[in-house]
C-alpha cells in the first residue's frame, strides 16, 4: 500500500475523531456554564475549554478573554483556527478525496455528506439551541463515519491504519483533558472542593462520554480518583488511555503480522501499554498525576512520529 494512502487514511480518522472531541468539549462546557456560580466556582469555563482543545496560544492571539460566543465560534466554525470542527471536517474530506478508491462507498458517502451538510450551517448557529443541535450533528456524523468504516472496510492494512488514527487521536484527547483538569482529580480534592467540584467531574466524564459508564463500573458517587482511574487505567472504558493503547497495539500487531516485520512503532507502543498495565492509581498519585500525564503525552507524540517514519512517508 502506498505510504501516502496510509497517511491519508490515518489522518482522515484523526480529524473526524478530533471534530467529535471538540464537540464534546463544547457540549460539556455549555452545560457547566449554565449552572449557577455557587455550583461550579468562579473559574472561566470557556477558557478551560480552549485549554483542553489545545489551541490556547492561537486563541489568545485573536481574543483577549474567552467568552461563550468567541470560544464556540473559534472551536467550531473559525476558518482561522486550523483545528476548528469546520477545518477538521474540511481536512478529513480532503484526505478522503485523495484516497477515494481506498475507501468504501459508505465511508465516502459519510464524510462527503458531512462536508456537504457543513456548508448548510453557514457561518455558525445563531442561538444556543442551534449550537446544541450543531454539536449533536457533529457527534452523529463522527459516529456514522466510524460505524461505516467499522462495518464496511476490508480487514487489511487500510483498515488498521485508519483505526490507528482513531486511537492515537483519542488517546491524545483524553490525555489533554486530564492534563488541564488534573488538579480537580487529586485525592485530597474531595475535602477541598466538595460539591463545588462535582459538576466539574461530571463535565470531564461527559467530554469523554463516560458519565454513565462510571456508574456501571464503580457503582459509587463521583470520586475524583475513581474518575482518574476510569480515564487512565480501565481497559473496558473505550476512551481511557489503557483502552486506546490496547487498540493501538492490536492494530500495529496486525500490520506487523501482515507485513511479516516488526519495527520501532510496534516496540514503542507495547512499551507504553505495558507501563499503563503495570500502573496503579496510588503509585501514579504518589509520583504525581501531572507528571504522569505529561510523560504520556510526550510518549504518545513520539509514537506518532515513529508511525509516520516507519509507514507513512
Amino acid at each position: 500500500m502506498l505510504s501516502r494512502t496510509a497517511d491519508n487514511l490515518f489522518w482522515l480518522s484523526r480529524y473526524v475523531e478530533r471534530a467529535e472531541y471538540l464537540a464534546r468539549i463544547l457540549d460539556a462546557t455549555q452545560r457547566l456554564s449554565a449552572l449557577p456560580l455557587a455550583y461550579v466556582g468562579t473559574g472561566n469555563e470557556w477558557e478551560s475549554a480552549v485549554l483542553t482543545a489545545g489551541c490556547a496560544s492561537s486563541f489568545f492571539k485573536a481574543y483577549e478573554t474567552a467568552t461563550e460566543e468567541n470560544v464556540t465560534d473559534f472551536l467550531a466554525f473559525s476558518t482561522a483556527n486550523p483545528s476548528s470542527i469546520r477545518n477538521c471536517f474540511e481536512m478529513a474530506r480532503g484526505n478522503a478525496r485523495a484516497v477515494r478508491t481506498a475507501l468504501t462507498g459508505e465511508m465516502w458517502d459519510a464524510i462527503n455528506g458531512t462536508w456537504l451538510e457543513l456548508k448548510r450551517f453557514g457561518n455558525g448557529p445563531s442561538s444556543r439551541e442551534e449550537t446544541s443541535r450543531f454539536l449533536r450533528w457533529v457527534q452523529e456524523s463522527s459516529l456514522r463515519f466510524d460505524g461505516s468504516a467499522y462495518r464496511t472496510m476490508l480487514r487489511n492494512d487500510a483498515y488498521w491504519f485508519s483505526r490507528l488514527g482513531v486511537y492515537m487521536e483519542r488517546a491524545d484527547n483524553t490525555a489533554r483533558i486530564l492534563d488541564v483538569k488534573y488538579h480537580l482529580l487529586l485525592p485530597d480534592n474531595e475535602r477541598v472542593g466538595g460539591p463545588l467540584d462535582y459538576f466539574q467531574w461530571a463535565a470531564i466524564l461527559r467530554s469523554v462520554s463516560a458519565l454513565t459508564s462510571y456508574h456501571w463500573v464503580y457503582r459509587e458517587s463521583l470520586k475524583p480518583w475513581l474518575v482518574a482511574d476510569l480515564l487512565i487505567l480501565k481497559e473496558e472504558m473505550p476512551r481511557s488511555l489503557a483502552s486506546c493503547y490496547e487498540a493501538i497495539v492490536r492494530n500495529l500487531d496486525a500490520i506487523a503480522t501482515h507485513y511479516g516485520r516488526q519495527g520501532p512503532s510496534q516496540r514503542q507502543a507495547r512499551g507504553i501499554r505495558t507501563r499503563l498495565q503495570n500502573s496503579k492509581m496510588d503509585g501514579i498519585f504518589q509520583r504525581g498525576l501531572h507528571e504522569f500525564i505529561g510523560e504520556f503525552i510526550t510518549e504518545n507524540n513520539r509514537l506518532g512520529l515513529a508511525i509516520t517514519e516507519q509507514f507513512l512517508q
Partner: protein
Amino acid sequence: MGVAFDEMKGHDGTAVRPAYGELDRWLKEVPPDVLDYRRREAELIFRRIGITFAVYGEADATERLIPFDVIPRIMSADEWRRLEKGLTQRVNALNLFIKDVYGARDILRAGIVPEDMIFRNPAFRPEMNGQTVPHDIYVHIAGIDIIRVDADTFYVLEDNARTPSGVSYMLENREIMMRLFPELFSRHRIAPVENYPDELLATLRSVAPLSTAKEPNVVLLTPGVYNSAYYEHSFLADKLGVELVEGRDLFVKDEVVYMRTTQGPQRVDVIYRRVDDDFIDPLAFRPDSILGVPGLMSAYTAGNVTLANAVGTGIADDKAIYSFMPDIVKFYLGEEPLLKNVPTWRCREPEHLSYVLDHLPELVVKEVHGSGGYGMLIGPSASKIAIEQFRAKLKTAPDNFIAQPTLALSTSPTCVEQGVAPRHVDLRPFVLTGRNGVRIVPGGLTRVALKEGSLVVNSSQGGGTKDTWVLDK
C-alpha cells in the same frame, strides 16, 4: 457550410439509416416524460458516483458534471471496420514519425516536413534525441478526434498523442445506459467496451523495460486531486488495479524508480503518466514543478522504466504537424491514408496567411499548441469585434495558428428541452498500441454540442457526451 449530415436521417432527412432503425422505432414508442425522467435519473447517478471535472476560470464551480445525453450515437459494423483500419494506420504512422524525428530524421532529409517545424517546436524534446524506447512505441494511448461530414467521409480533426482523456466517460456512459435502458439494449447487439481497462493493462505490461524480470509493476501517475481529470485517473487506477500515485510517492535511486509504500520502497516498471512532459521531472524540465519525480528522466533514458506515453510525443499532435499527416502516412507506410485530414492552412506560410486573413469569417482558426477549445476563433459565429481582435493576434504571431474551413459536423438525435433534436457530434476513439500491435475497443467518446447550431463539443465549452454504440452488423 451546407446542411449537416444527420447520423440518423442522412442528408435529406427523409429515410432513417439502417443502424438507427431500432432506435427510431423506440424513440417513437417511448413517451417523452419517460425519456426526461431517465435523463434526470442519469444525472443523479453521475452526481452520486462523483464524475466531475474542473472548469478553468470558474472559481466557485470547481466540481461540475459534464452533461450526459441518453440517446446513443450508433455506428454500423461496416463503418466501424473502416474507421478501425484508418485509425490503426494513422497511429502506426504517428509512432514511426516520432521514432524518426528523435532518431534518423529521414523525413526531414526527404524534405517532407520542414526541419524548423520540428526543431523550433516547443513540443520537440531535445532530451529524447537519440534515445530508444521499449519496442519503439511512443504513443501507447492515442485519442484520435474524428468528425463525419457525410455517409462515407470521416475526417481526423485532431491527434491527441500526449495524455488524451475522456475514456472514463466512454466506460461510465455505457454502464449507465445499460442500467437505465435495458429494453433498448435487448433490441440491439452492441459491441462491448467494458474490456478497455484489461486491454490497457495488457498494453502497459507489454511495453515494460526489457530488463524487467518478473511481472511488471504498473502505476498511474496523476498530478493530484486538483487536476481536472482527477476523477478519471482514480477511476482508471481502480479499474486497472494499479496504484494511483503522485510525484511525491515516487523516487529515483540509482536510476531505478521506486514507490514509497508502507512496506518500504517497491520498484516501478511502467508509469502510465497523466502529467505533462513539462512537469514530469524538475531536474530535466521545469525546475519549479512539484508534480514530478526528480531524476525520472535519468531512469527513463537508462531504460529502467517505461513512460506511457513517451516523453516528447507532443511533436506528433501539434496542429501544424497535423497538416502533414497525409504525407507522413505515405512516407512511412507507403500507403494512401485511409482517414482524411481536414484541409488546413498553415498561417506560418505567407500565402496561406493572406488567404486566412481574407476569409476569417468563414474559417476556424486554432492555436497550434492549444487544446480544449481554448483560444480559437470560429469565424461564422464570431462577432466582428472578435474577428478583428483575432486578426491582430494572427498578424503578430502567425506561426502560432492554423486555419480550417468550418465543417458541418454530423448531427445525431439528442435529448434537449424541446424534445429530441439533432445536435452536432464528434467522436474520440481510444487507440492502444503495445508490443503486439494496435487494439481499439469498438466505440469511443461521442461529444455533443448541446447548444443548437453550436460546433464546439468541448466539455469546457458546454459540450456533453453520449454513449457510442457499434453494432455487430
